């Protein structure tokens, strides 16, 4: 598997000493049984040679210590290396995910990505650690034991006793397959239950509002029952595995008892041989049993590796400029020329022939329906996707010739979804500019009109947000996002429909502050649904299906009487307008 070559080149050598010690361990494993047999034979002599018996016993203890040492060493090497691999896999995955663009994340559920990082990585580790080791020990211990049975004791006895084993192997494979299939159904049943519970809890207000508690319990009950049934059906086969092994080995032991006794009585083998033989037969129980487990681990591991590889081999969406032709901070001039863009997964063009020029300190407004291409335009300006060469330039330098650092650190971006990290409010605001002073953080918070709200929390700026922290309203989150963008005094500010969740009054206050920012020479791109948010922009574009259908100042567009004016009139006068709509 190609994805693992990086790891094997660096760390793969550790498997070699591991394997050497493992084979030594397997060879030593059969020794105590042999020695016990010898001791038995020594004790059968009319006059017991005590010294010889004690010597045998000493060897036995020595062999035990040898087994202990070799086993400890190979386990450390192989299982330890698998843990190292686990770390490497997770790290590689995370690093790679960081290079993938929004189109990747839009098509993947977060839950699936988590499954890659936890479950799949774990399954791969199991394959290259315990699974690999189990396969090897089973193989070698089994081979050494069988060899000893045949060569060290008696070939005929060995063959007679091993007759049932191939049948057992076939049965184990079959039973293993059925168990896996039923286990899959158990997992599906569990996933169904989880999904239902999750959905139910997310929608609990609706359920309560419509007094749907009892029907919900009924709906849950059928999934619940299904979960019990699938589990019982799996147990029926899975619990048969180990007794089946015991039973069939029981046949072997019975053969050994009858045929072996006969051989002892006729003097073909000694009693000690029979004892040793019994010991060898016991030693191969585990290897045979391991067959099912190894197949299981291997299958899961390979499936996981395939999923993992698919993610890690997804080509990075955006590559950094090979040489940076833009020295130092952006000045705030944007030129977009005839920008046409298709998303990598095909479909219609998301943008067609969009052109505009934004001078430093000017503002550009963009109005359009959902799906008109507004967010795509923002994504392209931030180089989250690759526009074709020659279509987007900052300060006269093509976007592909600007280092990502220069580009993105020059733009303050406020997204539509107000994602905050589980950290303090201050850390969230400082996210953009780690070196910002406390004063700068506070100033940004004031400009985003969130300062007073923050100070109302008991811990102020040290208040924890997210999962374990306080719950913020949508409006509060938006304002913190704005403060986060403002704290670094960016030369370009992009507001991607960022004021939808604040009430009219707060919106006013924020605009007031933002006007100050723009007056200070920052260029702005403002995406909005509401005309009121756009009317002060120096130029306004109206997008529809990725095309600019109208452009101009507020006054010009109103005079034009097109889409913009229509929307504006509707929003201004509210319902009167809809009467005839």
């Amino acid at each position, binding site marked *: 598997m190609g994805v693992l070559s990086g790891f094997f080149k660096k760390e793969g050598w550790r498997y070699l000493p591991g394997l050497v010690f493992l084979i030594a361990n397997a060879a030593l494993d059969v020794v*105590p049984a042999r020695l016990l047999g010898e001791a*038995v034979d020594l*004790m059968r002599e009319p006059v*017991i040679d005590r010294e010889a018996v004690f010597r045998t*016993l000493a060897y*036995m*203890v020595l*062999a035990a210590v040898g087994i*202990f040492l070799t*086993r400890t060493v190979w*386990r450390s090497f192989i*299982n*330890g290396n698998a*843990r190292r691999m*686990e770390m490497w896999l997770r*790290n590689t995955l*995370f690093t790679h995910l960081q290079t*993938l663009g929004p189109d990747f994340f839009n098509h993947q559920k*977060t839950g699936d990505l988590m499954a890659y*990082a*936890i479950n799949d990585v774990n399954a791969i580790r199991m394959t290259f650690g315990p699974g690999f080791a189990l396969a090897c020990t089973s193989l070698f211990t089994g081979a050494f034991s069988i060899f000893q049975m045949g060569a060290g004791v008696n070939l005929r006895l060995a063959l007679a006793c091993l007759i049932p084993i191939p049948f057992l192997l076939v049965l184990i494979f079959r039973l293993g397959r059925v168990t896996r299939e039923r286990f899959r159904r158990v997992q599906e049943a569990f996933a169904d*239950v989880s*999904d239902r*519970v999750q959905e139910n809890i*997310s929608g*609990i*207000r609706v359920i*309560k509002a*419509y*007094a*749907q*508690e009892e*029907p919900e*319990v009924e709906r849950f009950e059928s999934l*619940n029952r299904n*979960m*019990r049934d699938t*589990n*019982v059906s799996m*147990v*029926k086969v899975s*619990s*048969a595995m180990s007794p089946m092994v015991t*039973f069939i080995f*029981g*046949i072997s032991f019975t053969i050994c008892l009858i045929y072996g*006794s006969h051989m*002892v009585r006729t003097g073909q083998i000694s*009693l000690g041989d029979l004892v040793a033989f019994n010991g060898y037969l016991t030693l191969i129980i585990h290897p045979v049993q391991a067959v099912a487990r190894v197949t299981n681990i291997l299958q899961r591991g390979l499936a996981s590796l395939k999923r993992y590889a698919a993610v890690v081999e997804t080509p990075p969406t955006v590559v950094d400029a090979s040489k940076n032709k833009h020295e130092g901070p952006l000045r705030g001039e944007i030129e977009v020329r005839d920008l046409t863009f298709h998303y990598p997964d095909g479909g219609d063009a998301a943008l067609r022939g969009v052109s505009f020029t934004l001078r430093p300190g000017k503002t550009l407004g963009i109005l359009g329906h*959902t799906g008109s291409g507004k967010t795509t335009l923002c994504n392209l300006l931030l180089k*989250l996707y690759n526009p074709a060469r020659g279509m987007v330039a900052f300060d006269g330098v093509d976007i592909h010739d600007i280092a990502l650092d220069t580009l*993105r650190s020059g733009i303050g971006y406020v997204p539509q979804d107000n994602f905050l990290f589980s950290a303090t409010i201050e850390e969230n605001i400082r*996210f953009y500019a780690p070196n910002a002073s406390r004063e700068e953080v506070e100033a940004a918070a004031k400009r985003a009109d969130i300062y007073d709200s923050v100070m109302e929390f008991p811990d102020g700026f040290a208040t924890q947000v997210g999962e374990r922290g306080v719950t913020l309203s949508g409006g509060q989150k938006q304002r913190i996002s704005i403060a986060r963008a403002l704290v670094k005094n960016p030369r370009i500010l992009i507001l991607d429909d960022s004021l939808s969740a604040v009430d*009219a*009054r707060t919106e006013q206050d924020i605009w007031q502050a933002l006007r100050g920012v723009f007056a200070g020479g920052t260029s702005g791109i403002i995406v909005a*649904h509401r005309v*009121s948010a756009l*009317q002060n922009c120096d130029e306004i574009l109206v997008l529809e299906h990725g095309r600019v259908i109208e452009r101009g100042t507020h006054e010009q567009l109103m005079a034009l009487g097109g889409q913009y004016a229509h929307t504006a009139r*509707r929003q201004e*006068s509210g319902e009167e307008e809809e009467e005839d709509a």
Partner: protein
Amino acid sequence: MPKNRRGLSRLLPFLKPQGKTLLLCLLMVLLVNAAELAKPYILEIVIDRYLTTGRPDQGLDAVWVLALSYMACVALSSGLNVTEAVMVNRMGQSILMDIRRRVFTHIQHMSMKTLDHFSSGRLITRATNDVETLNELFSDVLVNLFKDVFMLLGIVAMMLWMNWRLALVAFAVVPLIALITVLVRGRLRRNFVRLKALTGQINGFFAENMSGMRLVQIFRKEKEKHDEFDELNFGYYKAARLQVRMNSLMRPLVEVVNQLGIAILVWYGCGQIGLGTLEIGLLYAFTNYIKQFFEPINDLAEKYTTISSAVVSTDRIFELLDDETQLEDTEAGKPLEQVVGRVEFRHVWFAYEGENWVLRDVSFTIEPGQSVAFVGTTGAGKSTIISLLSRFYDIQKGEILLDGRNIADFSLRTLRQHVAVVLQDVFLFSGTIAENVRLGNHEITDEQVGQALRLACADRFISELPGGMNYPVTERGSTFSAGQRQLLSFARAIAHDPAVFVLDEATASIDTDTEALIQASVRNVSSGRTTIIIAHRLSTIRHCDCIYVLRSGRIREQGSHEALMALGGIYRKLHDMQIKDS
């Protein structure tokens, strides 16, 4: 909250009705153990009576008989083993189903006030993963625990019975095993807990970064986030490596002790055999017993982890189930029938917590069929009014009346049937569109669903979908726009034909076309019904019979749009701000 008995004893009541099954299983376990114990004994007899005495002409039939009884023991133990495992599991799964149902039902009946304090993740874990942990307890531990314990006791008894002196010698290594187990297992367990906690952290970090990846990239924080992850990942590796090392040591060490035990046994036995007080077969049987002895010990130690996580999960499950103060009884009180829709708030005071009044002395009356609106800035208490009317929360002072009767007197179920609420965040369930309109109410016919969709102006976009109203809703309706989801939730309200309709207007941006549909839809819903609109955009509510302006939990202005405009107060200001934009 009273501290009840803790731990696994809480599961006993579930086992009680299964007494007979348990007894039967126990009986089988005893038989299995007896069969297992008989196996080495048979070997002993074969060796000592027929192999060492050296009379080849005798006992061939006897060996056959013994060998076949050996086989019979094997067959008995494996057969009973399967039967017992299936029985215990069937019982266990039924109990788990019962627990799962109880947890789920409990969550359904938790009051909003309690739910506010639980993260959804915690509740989901209770109903799924915690119960799943108990699954291991039932399927793995319960099946084998008794077997292991009886096996240990059986082996000890058997050895003492066969030769007590030799038995005592054989037990010489037991303290050593105990010592190793205590020393290593404790650390191993602590490390295991740590490993689990670290997995949780990695999980959380990963989840957050996946959702926030776009931001990380835009803000060029890839390196910082990667370093953070690296540290976490390395911490996990260190704990895992310790786990590997201790495991590499622990298991082989137990095996060494096992070999050591056999060597001591043979060493002692050698002397006894020389004296003629011991026979080889017995010695050999003892080496077998010693091997059998270590298996249950290892097993029991392994099960310890399962048991301790099961204890944690049981505690967590019952902590939830025991607290009945969290519940609301939807059936308590008189059933509410035939509602005309007169809503009255009389001097209502309400706080979510303590004295943090969200509503202060709010009074108003809405006549049947009227439409009223509440406006005010964020935090003024608008949305709270909805929650109170559905009695998601109980008020501290005052009265809320429906048709002149206090809503606290009626059962929650019937009250909520008459008050339909459309929340800001519309929630759609997986299922079809029709199911989402109908929810669990099967009395609503397909025609009524269709009618509701038409009145909600949702029919146009639905007719374009394959399958129409049987079109599946996936992933909480993410394939629909915010506006479309809103229309569907109106249809839901219309279909349930409530006397009072409450709308918490969505703040999410909705494009102007859909906005128009929503307005038309609202007019359809509100015709002939008492309607309360919590407005965020003033344009929606001009036609309302009365508009209440809330500020800091008090009603500051009220009247029609024209009256309030004429008044020139807060409403006028809000209005001017939205319309004219300074």
